[in-house]
């Protein structure tokens, strides 16, 4: 009970800090914070696909891109933001479902290659199909939405807008992973053959894991476009997919709070290291390498190891709990 209370207080403190944070920053800082919120949403999606359901995907950048282009294309043609926002999520959900089919046949690095090819393909469409995407010139003057008549044009207002979306997406993800679906996703990751023999329709859950992750990528994209207000193909290349993968893995793959921390490392840490001037990307790379070598389970895996040292599984639990078997 006290632990639950402590967790609530900690969450409230973090929430208050996040709401108040933009007052401490110049517009660029607020922009970076907004980017953190948007990337957290995309990483939450990838964490569902990869961390919970165990399906390796290098396609998340493509879904962020599709979401961003759908929003940019339609809002610059006068569509209301909310309809494009919903459409971005739905389009990505549908494409994610289709991309799940290869995952029914191949796994692990083979699946990584399939999804990598998909990212490249989508990038080429963004760059080459000028009639639709504007090619390398991209789409500019993407309007920011307004909520109940309040314009979200100012950096702070738009940051709060993104933060509110992050909160909603987090609650939905929390609800989902604690549902029977969440349990089925973990079963899919841990032992698909056994899951299948227990009545879990692994085919349908695999497709659903892809579709849900992709849908959240699309929603992140729908926020990304009005955040940067100008999009071109370059941010949606393979680099972003790898970066999103880094966020999930560094934060702690399969941990609910992993993506938030991972997105902090990937989006905010490089900025904080700017005091090292020309060396900041190098310092960043070294930090990430050290973390991955010493803690492959990510930051939350590290935290769990420090706070909850697990007893040696067999020796510690088997003997004291012998009564259940000696009864016969």
């Amino acid at each position: 009970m006290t632990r639950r209370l402590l967790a609530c207080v900690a969450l409230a403190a973090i929430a208050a800090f996040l709401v108040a944070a933009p007052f401490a920053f110049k517009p660029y800082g607020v922009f970076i914070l907004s980017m953190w919120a948007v990337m957290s949403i995309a990483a939450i999606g990838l964490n569902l696909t990869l961390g919970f359901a165990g399906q390796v995907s290098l396609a998340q950048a493509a879904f962020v891109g599709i979401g961003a282009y759908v929003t940019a294309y339609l809002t610059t043609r006068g569509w209301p933001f909310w309809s494009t926002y919903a459409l971005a999520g739905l389009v990505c959900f549908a494409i994610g479902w289709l991309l799940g089919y290869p995952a029914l046949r191949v796994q692990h690095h083979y699946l990584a290659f399939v999804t990598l090819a998909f990212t490249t393909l989508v990038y080429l469409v963004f760059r080459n199909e000028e009639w639709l995407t504007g090619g390398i010139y991209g789409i500019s003057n993407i309007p920011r939405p307004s909520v109940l008549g309040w314009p979200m044009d100012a950096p702070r207002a738009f940051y709060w807008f993104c933060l509110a979306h992050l909160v909603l997406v987090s609650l939905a993800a929390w609800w989902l992973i604690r549902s029977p679906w969440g349990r089925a996703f973990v079963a899919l990751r841990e032992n698909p053959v056994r899951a299948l023999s227990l009545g879990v329709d692994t085919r349908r859950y695999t497709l659903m894991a892809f579709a849900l992750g992709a849908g959240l990528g699309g929603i992140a994209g729908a926020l990304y476009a009005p955040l940067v207000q100008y999009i071109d193909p370059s941010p949606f290349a393979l680099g972003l997919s790898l970066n999103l993968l880094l966020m999930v893995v560094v934060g702690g793959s399969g941990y609910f709070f992993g993506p938030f921390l991972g997105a902090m490392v990937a989006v905010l840490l490089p900025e904080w290291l700017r005091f090292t001037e020309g060396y900041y990307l190098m310092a960043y790379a070294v930090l990430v390498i050290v973390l991955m070598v010493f803690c492959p389970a990510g930051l939350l895996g590290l935290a769990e190891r420090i706070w909850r040292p697990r007893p040696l599984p067999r020796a510690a639990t088997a003997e004291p709990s012998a009564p259940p078997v000696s009864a016969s």
Partner: protein
Amino acid sequence: MTAVLEVHGLEKRFGGIVAVAGVSFELKEGEILGIIGPNGSGKSTLFNCILGQLRPTAGDVRLDGRTVTGMRPCDLNRLGVSRTFQLLQIFPQLSVRENLILAGQEHKGTMLSRLFGPRDAGLSARADEMLGFFRLGPLADELAGGLSYGQQKLLDAAMAFMAGPRLALLDEPAGGVNLTMLASLRDRLKAINAEFGATFVVIEHNMEFVMALCHRILVLAEGRIIAQGDPAEVRRDPRVIEAYLGHA
């Protein structure tokens, strides 16, 4: 009375190798059938063909008179056929109770109703009942991966019975289990059979275990049934002794 399970001329080839060469048998309600045979005699392949993990080359499988040959394992499971595997198969990162809830959750409603409907639907009560039955109650909230091997084997068996199956196929339930645990497992399986009239097929190498548990035994060698009968008959059968020990 129709048989719960009918297997008819089942055959499985892998290229030129015939793993199962025309096996037929029937199983009555409430029966415990043992399948024994030397390593490589086709026992597990036979299971995998019956359960849809492998598609048989020929022959058919009927459940309560209905043909189910080649049906997907998850659909077959929802029709009431459950199994355990030769190698231990549990979900180590879920708690013991969650392992059981997972084993039951796909049996009711649709995928959507599982997400939006009531979360529990009596599953944790049922899980606790199974844990009590298999004497795993005190371990309910432990991670399954932290249990001893024997306890994991019991959990594995408990998962197979979570949804109240019509028929359970157990592949070497006693493999690697110590003596006390073995007695407990045998006792629990007998109790399930007696109390709920559950029907099983058990593959096992531990002769003592098979002889004590099963009503009837099939002996498989090189993909064929070479003998069958009650435990005492099988034990005396010269063909069985030959298959196990080679020519005298």
